[in-house]
């Protein structure tokens, strides 16, 4: 039944964990549409034939009974709100990635996709992922709004410049599926297409080892992104203000900070995640940590995406160690 309806509606294969549920909701909505519209058509044809004009006779003033109107309205409203409830529940699943999802950094640039894996390799336009494991894409754009769309996974998320948006999926069947940019982004918008290659876990592991990390940053032969992160942090002077072992310094320590909630000078708090770290590198004075001076320079344009990803991975790798008691200076 599912296959028949999927073929009739010309839907792409259901290759992700959520695709099947979304398609069931799709079938219910489309079938209800056909039912409703054919009912209207049949009623119209019946009325035209049954009540065709025979002469300019007078017609009774029929008033719609209140109960009929009420039931029709509440019935329809219940149906529509039920669809919304199911739809929004699925939307929540689509929007919030599972905590154990493997992060991959996506940079959208005018008319190409760049993928950066946490363990080093990076690739353009082809995203290789393991089957059966949730993958979280942390995406940002270097120029205009693009939109990451994989029809086979039923996922889509606009990639907004100046911000990190995330989308997640879990490939169920191996194969190659099209990536398409669906937000108009310029002359070659329709050529901005890529592929997701879903490999069984062991093939994926083999692919990962074999894949030479892109000499993107020119350094860091063959070691992971975390090691590259340490090197980039030293080279760009981050280590002068941010310690890795918890010793207090000019800037907040990175030890055990990932995932924690941090108070801000401007009041309010923020959970330290990729979004906050990326933003603080590009625009450090936007959300200054409580108890510290806004002295950090901006790294906008000085750090390649691979370096940004490397530093985020470095901070993520330090999160399990327990930080020393954070003594905060009294609030001046």
């Amino acid at each position, binding site marked *: 039944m599912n296959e028949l309806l999927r073929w009739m509606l010309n839907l792409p294969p259901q290759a992700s964990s959520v695709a099947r549920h979304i398609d069931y909701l799709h079938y219910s909505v489309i079938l209800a549409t056909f039912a409703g519209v054919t009912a209207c058509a049949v009623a119209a044809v019946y009325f035209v034939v049954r009540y065709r004009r025979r002469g300019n006779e007078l017609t009774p003033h029929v008033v719609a009974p209140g109960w009929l109107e009420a039931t029709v309205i509440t019935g329809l409203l219940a149906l529509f709100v039920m669809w919304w409830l199911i739809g929004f529940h699925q939307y929540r699943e689509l929007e*919030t990635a599972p905590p154990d999802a493997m992060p991959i950094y996506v940079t959208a640039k005018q008319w190409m996709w760049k993928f950066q894996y946490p363990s080093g390799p990076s690739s353009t336009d082809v995203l290789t992922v393991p089957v059966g494991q949730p993958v979280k894409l942390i995406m940002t754009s270097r120029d205009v709004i693009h939109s990451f769309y994989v029809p086979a996974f039923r996922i889509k998320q606009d990639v907004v410049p100046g911000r990190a948006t995330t989308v997640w999926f879990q490939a169920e069947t191996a194969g190659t599926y099209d990536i398409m940019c669906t937000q108009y982004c310029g002359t070659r918008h329709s050529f901005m297409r890529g592929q997701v290659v879903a490999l069984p876990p062991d093939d994926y592991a083999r692919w990962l080892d074999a894949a030479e990390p892109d000499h993107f940053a020119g350094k860091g032969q063959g070691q992971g992104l975390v090691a590259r992160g340490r090197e980039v942090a030293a080279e760009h002077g981050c280590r002068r203000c941010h310690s890795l072992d918890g010793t207090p310094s000019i800037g907040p320590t990175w030890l055990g900070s990932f995932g924690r909630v941090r108070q801000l000078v401007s009041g309010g708090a923020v959970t330290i995640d990729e979004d906050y770290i990326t933003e603080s590198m590009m625009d450090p004075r936007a959300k200054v940590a409580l108890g510290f001076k806004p002295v950090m320079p901006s790294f906008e344009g000085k750090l390649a995406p691979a370096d940004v990803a490397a530093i985020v991975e470095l901070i993520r790798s330090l999160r399990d160690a327990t930080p020393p008691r954070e003594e905060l200076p009294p609030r001046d």
Partner: protein
Amino acid sequence: MKRYLLSWIALVVLATLSLFVSTSGIALSLAIATVKAAIVAAFFMHLWGSRPVHRIVFVTAVCFIVLLILGVVADVGTRDIAGPYVP
């Protein structure tokens, strides 16, 4: 005539008041501004005694201004409230 002078005095007093009370946050200043706006609308713009259509148009416009601001603020303010994924 007297009504105009009275409302002018009220407006000036309220303006000066909101100057001193501004340190205690934007909400109070906006409340005072709304009172001043009500005075101008009611007396200077004769909303007080004129046709109900005028009041309906004024209230509708104010409602839609607030609606647009709320819609945008509701989005920007709650962008990362989404809790962890519970399967």
